[in-house]
């Protein structure tokens, strides 16, 4: 795991964070000695499946949960002993869009501003500014219950920014959003990144981590199991691959030889689905070469394409198991459920 680079001060340090939840089937280790360093002015994505411990990590760092073991500092404040000072300089936006739906957008922002200990006129001015920035000016005086999911999420993020936090936690900022709102959210987050915010976000999507973060930390079973840029992680799984579905089972053997020749490695074959897969180091060029070779040989194909490694591929290669949800932990790490697990 890389540590502090270039002499900059870490914005987040966590050592050996451990959190246990009691569940019906016994104790669940939501965090199992998690270590983490995030440098000031960078964006780190915690990537992992439901129940990996992402939300629990964020909740500990944002002072909502106490770790059972280990320690963490954020912006120099200990998350347990200095929690109240820390709350002044961080912002938290979660997957549950925690805004009051009976208040208007403007009222929500004013209220959260006041509770950040900002005085009333400043809170009002900042609310106007944020409504404008997040494209909510027209809806600012409507109750939030009339907002769309994407609008609520933007308001939630705006609420986290009302006190000019030096560090922002975004817990699954786009989970549950439709594709258009997701892209909109990405734009908003990117603009924050351009302004130099330090950001820790959690996501289940490699694509999202790729789009937003400098560094990705892969979380599994309460630990960081890999850390690097998106490209580094993808190349650790072998980068892009070409996939071909052959129409006639009788031609599978011939197709396998051709694809293996084109890709300079033995392709894998799934007889049942008639699917051939091989690493495509040359990207699109390689795909063209494969299609040409198959066509020249008169092999009929049903489907062909380049596939980027998914979170599943990264997981398979890092852990040897698929990134499927671990039921018990998933329940324990959801904020609402966690609220009951005391």
């Amino acid at each position, binding site marked *: 795991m890389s540590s502090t680079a270039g002499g900059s*001060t*870490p*914005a987040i340090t966590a050592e050996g964070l451990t959190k246990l939840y009691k569940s019906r089937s016994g104790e669940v280790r939501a965090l199992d000695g998690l270590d983490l360093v995030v440098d*000031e002015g960078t964006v780190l994505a915690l990537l992992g499946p439901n129940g990996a411990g992402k939300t629990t990590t964020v*909740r500990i760092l*944002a*002072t*909502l*949960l*106490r770790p059972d073991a280990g320690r963490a*500092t954020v*912006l*120099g*404040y200990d998350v347990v002993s200095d929690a*109240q*000072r820390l*709350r*002044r*300089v*961080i912002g*938290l936006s*979660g997957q*549950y*869009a*925690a*805004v*009051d*739906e*009976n*208040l208007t957008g403007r*009222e929500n922002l004013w*209220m*959260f501003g*006041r*509770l*950040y*200990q900002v005085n009333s006129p400043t809170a009002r001015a900042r609310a106007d500014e944020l409504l404008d920035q997040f494209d909510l000016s027209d809806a600012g005086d409507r*109750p939030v219950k009339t907002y769309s999911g994407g609008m609520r999420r933007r308001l939630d993020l705006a*609420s986290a920014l009302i*006190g000019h936090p030096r560090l922002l936690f975004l817990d699954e900022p786009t989970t549950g959003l439709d594709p258009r709102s997701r892209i909109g959210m990405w734009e908003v987050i990117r603009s924050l990144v351009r302004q130099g915010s330090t950001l820790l976000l959690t996501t289940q999507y490699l694509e999202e981590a790729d789009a937003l973060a400098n560094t990705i930390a892969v979380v599994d079973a309460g630990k960081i199991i890999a850390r690097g840029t998106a490209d580094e992680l993808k190349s650790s799984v072998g980068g892009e691959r070409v996939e071909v579905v052959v129409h006639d089972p009788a031609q599978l053997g011939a197709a396998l030889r051709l694809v293996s020749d084109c890709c300079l490695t033995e392709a894998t074959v799934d007889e049942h689905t008639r699917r051939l897969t091989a690493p495509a180091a040359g990207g699109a060029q390689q795909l063209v070469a494969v299609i040409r070779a198959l066509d020249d040989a008169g092999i009929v194909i049903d489907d062909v394409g380049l596939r980027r490694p998914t979170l599943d591929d990264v997981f398979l290669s890092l852990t040897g198991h698929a990134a499927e949800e671990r039921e018990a932990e998933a329940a324990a790490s959801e*904020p*609402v459920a*966690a*609220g*009951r*697990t*005391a």
Partner: protein
Amino acid sequence: MTTVQEAPPQQGSALSDSLVVTWRNLKRIPRIPELAIFAILQSVMFVLLFAFVFGGAIPLPGGGNYREFLMPGIFAQTLAFAAATTAIGMTDDMAKGLIDRFRSLPMSRSAFLTGRTVSDVVYNLGILIVLMLSGLAVGWRVHEGLARFLAGVGLTLLFAYAMSWVGVWLGMLVPTVEVAQQVAFTAIFPLTFLSNAFVPLQTLPGWLQPVADWNPVSAITAALRELWGNPNPFVTNSFPSEHPILMTLIWTALFIAIFAPLGVRRYRATSR
């Protein structure tokens, strides 16, 4: 370690934070008018049902007007349900994840709860006014002058405030609004019926009389009857029936002293 450039942030001011939370809770009332309207209708319905259905069937020892006897009981019952109102509000905020937002803010640790209980007192004052107007309509009167009338109103709201703190604690224990509602009703209905609110204590079986006698709902009901000059048939010369006002103050102080710290502790520790 990082050098912190900024001046140490000030602590959240408990008073101004509580006022902001109170403001937020009160804003909700006009935004969901159905809630207040049905709460009011329910109160009026109770007055009418008891006044007209039981009014003739329950004779008071030593005579006296049943409706005059009844109204303080209705006030006490309705405001005992302040615990349910508060519990439902708390559970709703928890289920929607709002409580996490508040807990992540640099605000006073008790303000969220104080704001909730204070706004519920304001709400309950509104309900009490409607109840009193309905009471006047069915023949209830205050006979002891303005000062004692206001003392009774103050005592009622204090009782409601104490019940709200029970609701705060309860609201954080249960998982959903529906459960909060069920638990609160299951606990409060017997509390209000095992009291002198609707029937004179003499009509209860002997073994039940001491229970009803020491019931906080009996204390506030008897206190109001005494303050306002409404019929107040004593059953025993027990301490609570002889000192209902003092007993109400003791109960409210006890509830707040127990449930406010429990609630704050629970709030700080939710999900720990």
